[in-house]
């Protein structure tokens, strides 16, 4: 039997969570005051968990590397948050959200977790509205919805193109209330550098004060990791510059299994890269695919003319354009899931139809939407015989109201007006579905150590649907962890304060200090970024949108060699006991250099195509689905959970078999 126990409760799917909540052990309010919890990361998952745990009465310490919890990268999420409210009366339900998420994840997620997520989704909207989150509303004063990729209903709630910002500020405000009450102590500009285990249980962390460089010990009865995903292993991604995998990777090295690292989401609509100096990529929300149509020219002559600046995209007539998503997937059109849309863009660009100088860009065009809205508005305002200019003006105003901040962002970066000429977009690394393995309680394979939000692997399988990351982060933090952690902490009421002057804390601190001293004393020849960019290049070329056995084997060898070179030749200026950005980066890149190798190993072992993981060896060779990804349920319907054994390449695989009792496994078809 596998060492992995998912602890999914027995009983019918729809009753599991309710029954579970009815039967767990609780901690009485007086005892909660004697229990400490550490939360690492203050994004949607960490922020909402910290606030809720503090409301319940636990003493919470939060840690974030930014100067304020409000700046965690959840803030950059644009499009929206899903919830099975069925306010539009278009046939949505808890079951349908559950079904869409499992299908969208290409049948590689755990049914019970996903059902619970769908079940609590509606409550999230109620909670956020009560907190004062200004969601978009219609003229009747009720909440508005939009549609996202991979689904046939409108269930996405939004606040302009800044939904993540508004939800995070909601969670941050809930934190503020608890900080004011003294129930949360925030440690901003602090970075967790290791977890401390005592008798097999997580009992604290070692953190570095990023302003003074001081190494601190913090103890607790449970530790929650909510540190986000590992997309920056690619160097270029839509993640924030500081987004890192260090907390997740350190707990992996201390016994937490790491699941499905190869499941990475390459988002189809990002601004294409422009040069070698590029430091990050910028997402253009998927919500744009509600109204934008994606195309490349049909004829190669037009592609060349556009690249040479002899033609403009607006010069091309309708029948000179290839709306390839509408052509290939008539049922879902421009709203196919992200993995499908990204691969389709790559297919066109690989075939030579890319529309910018690098050949890596396709158009996202709003002309049709501006026309459609313009005509609709003319009718609403009783304008008969409206001129083309008037229709354009009315239509552009609607598009501006919906996506104004995104259009402005695009214009500032690219220096082109997307109201007048189509946007250019190309896929970029955006989200990581893989992460720390957790059971139904969101506990890792280490007792008392929890992992929530993007940092865990649990709900999105091999591909995440749009507007589901915000949903999962808040579900974990507001509505799931506060129950499940209580069940564990009910056994801790007699433990008393955890001391930090113990051999376990001594050893963990020593390890951290030695590593820091190594970096500042190494005096090598290359900057940290030099290595990060090299790693990113290997990852993108060999573990990117499509992967094959040869490339993955090479990637493992190259990453290992790069890591060895890094430890010989990296240069970190400055000292340990001061504000030192390069030192922070060095520690993070050191962890990415290990994670990257495990990533490649995981991708190599999974000899099937599923969701964001596309193996060139596994495609449909004939029939209606020719050229599409081919999943292999017989051999690969499991979660790959890796146990650390001293070197990433030597990690041991444990399989959690996935059982599907409610949903029949089918090939995803969006045709």
């Amino acid at each position: 039997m596998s060492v992995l126990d998912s602890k999914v409760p027995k009983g019918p799917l729809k009753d599991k969570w309710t029954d579970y909540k009815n039967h767990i052990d609780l901690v009485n309010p007086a005892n909660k005051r004697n229990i400490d919890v550490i939360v690492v990361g203050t994004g949607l998952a960490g922020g909402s968990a910290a606030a809720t745990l503090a409301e319940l009465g636990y003493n919470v310490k939060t840690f974030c590397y930014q100067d304020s919890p409000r700046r965690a990268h959840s803030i950059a999420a644009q499009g929206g948050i899903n919830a099975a409210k069925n306010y539009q009366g278009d046939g949505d339900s808890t079951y349908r959200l559950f079904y869409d998420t499992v299908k969208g994840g290409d049948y590689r997620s755990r049914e019970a977790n996903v059902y619970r997520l769908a079940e609590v989704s509606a409550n999230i909207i109620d909670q956020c509205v009560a907190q004062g989150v200004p969601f978009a509303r219609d003229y009747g004063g009720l909440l508005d919805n939009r549609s996202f990729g991979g689904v046939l209903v409108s269930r996405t709630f939004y606040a302009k193109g800044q939904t993540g910002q508004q939800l995070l500020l909601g969670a941050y405000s809930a934190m503020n209330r608890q900080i004011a009450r003294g129930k949360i102590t925030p440690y901003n500009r602090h970075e967790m550098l290791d977890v401390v285990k005592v008798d097999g249980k997580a009992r604290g962390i070692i953190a570095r004060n990023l302003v003074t460089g001081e190494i601190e010990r913090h103890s607790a009865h449970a530790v929650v990791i909510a540190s986000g995903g590992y997309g920056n292993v690619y160097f270029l991604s839509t993640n924030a510059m500081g987004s890192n995998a260090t907390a997740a990777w350190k707990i992996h090295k201390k016994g937490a299994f790491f699941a499905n690292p190869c499941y990475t989401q390459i988002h189809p609509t990002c601004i294409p890269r422009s040069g070698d100096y590029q430091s990050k990529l910028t997402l253009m929300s998927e919500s744009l695919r509600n109204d934008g149509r994606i195309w490349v020219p049909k004829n190669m002559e037009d592609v060349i003319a556009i690249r040479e600046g002899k033609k403009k995209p607006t010069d091309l007539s309708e029948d000179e354009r290839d709306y390839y998503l509408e052509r290939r997937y008539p049922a879902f059109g421009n709203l196919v899931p992200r993995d499908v849309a990204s691969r389709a863009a790559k297919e066109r660009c690989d075939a030579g139809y890319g529309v910018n100088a690098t050949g890596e860009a396709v158009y996202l065009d709003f002309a049709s939407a501006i026309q459609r809205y313009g005509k609709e508005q003319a009718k609403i305002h009783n304008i008969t015989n409206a001129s083309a200019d008037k229709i354009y003006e009315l239509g552009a105003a609607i598009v501006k109201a919906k996506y104004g901040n995104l259009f402005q962002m695009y214009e500032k970066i690219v220096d082109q007006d997307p109201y007048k000429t189509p946007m250019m977009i190309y896929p970029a690394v955006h989200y990581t579905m893989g992460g720390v393995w957790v059971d139904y309680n969101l506990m890792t394979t280490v007792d008392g150590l929890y992992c929530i939000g993007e940092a865990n692997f649990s709900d999105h399988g091999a591909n995440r649907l749009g507007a589901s990351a915000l949903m999962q982060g808040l579900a974990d933090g507001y509505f799931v962890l506060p129950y499940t952690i209580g069940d564990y902490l009910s056994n801790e009421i007699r433990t008393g304060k955890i001391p930090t002057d113990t051999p376990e804390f001594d050893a963990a601190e020593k390890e951290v200090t030695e590593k820091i001293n190594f970096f500042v004393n190494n005096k090598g020849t290359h900057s940290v970024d030099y290595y990060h960019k090299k790693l990113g290049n290997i990852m993108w070329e060999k573990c990117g949108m499509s992967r094959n056995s040869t490339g993955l084997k090479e990637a493992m060898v190259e990453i290992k060699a790069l890591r060895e070179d890094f430890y010989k030749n990296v240069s970190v200026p400055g000292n340990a006991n001061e504000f030192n950005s390069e030192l922070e980066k060095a520690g993070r890149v050191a962890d990415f250099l290990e994670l990257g190798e495990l990533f490649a190993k995981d991708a190599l072992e999974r000899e099937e195509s599923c969701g964001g993981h596309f193996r060139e060896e596994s495609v449909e060779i004939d029939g209606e689905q020719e050229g599409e990804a081919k999943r292999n349920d017989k051999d690969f319907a499991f979660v790959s959970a890796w146990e650390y054994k001293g070197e990433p390449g030597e990690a041991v695989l444990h399989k959690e078999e996935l059982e599907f009792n409610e949903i029949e496994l089918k090939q995803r078809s969006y045709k």
Partner: protein
Amino acid sequence: MNLTLKIWRQKDAQSKGKMVDYKVTEISEHMSFLEMMDVLNEQLINSGEEPVAFDHDCREGICGMCSMYINGEAHGPDRGVTTCQLHMRMFKDGDTITIEPFRAKAFPVLKDLVVDRGAFDRIQHAGGYISVNTSGNTQDANSLPISKHAADEAMDAATCIGCGACVASCKNSSAMLFVGAKVSQYALLPQGQIEATDRVKNMVAQMDLEGFGNCTNTGACEIECPKGISLDNIARMNRELLKANF
């Protein structure tokens, strides 16, 4: 393009700082300002010098982490952008660019261009929230309709990213645009009105305690705000405060 940079260097909060000149070459007009700073830092590291410390994170204009006072303006010469979205096409070959940290008594310098904006957090602790627990049985989100107008106005106020450009731009180092935006967001929504009186009093009291100056209606904050937060929010805050006191 080739540029001369005059940058404020300061070892830590205790040390004295000074302006230091640097040269950067072959800067592309498509680079963001921070990518230009990356080029400078790579150059400094490779020549064994300490790189310039500056705050930055999302690099897409939403986290509010980046700051910098560039040629006498918070977030530089472009309008409606943060420093991370400022592009080098705003400058010309041969330019000299002066780069300072945000300057305000309430924002002490930690190192080089990095300042401590913890005062903003403490103002929010004083009342920047609605007192609602996470219970899972708050009323249905649609049971209380809110006019689209009010919701949109609340959203406009809530767009504030807390970067501190308003404070840095103000000759009085006033934080009233920031506090006004937060007070307004809640005052415009029915959920926020229940605690409106205490909220505005507590937040304003904390703002004064932190050492921010007062508003003299110059309006520089509104011009320099990367998110276009309107001065109306200051008026609304003052009205809320008057209402609260009488």
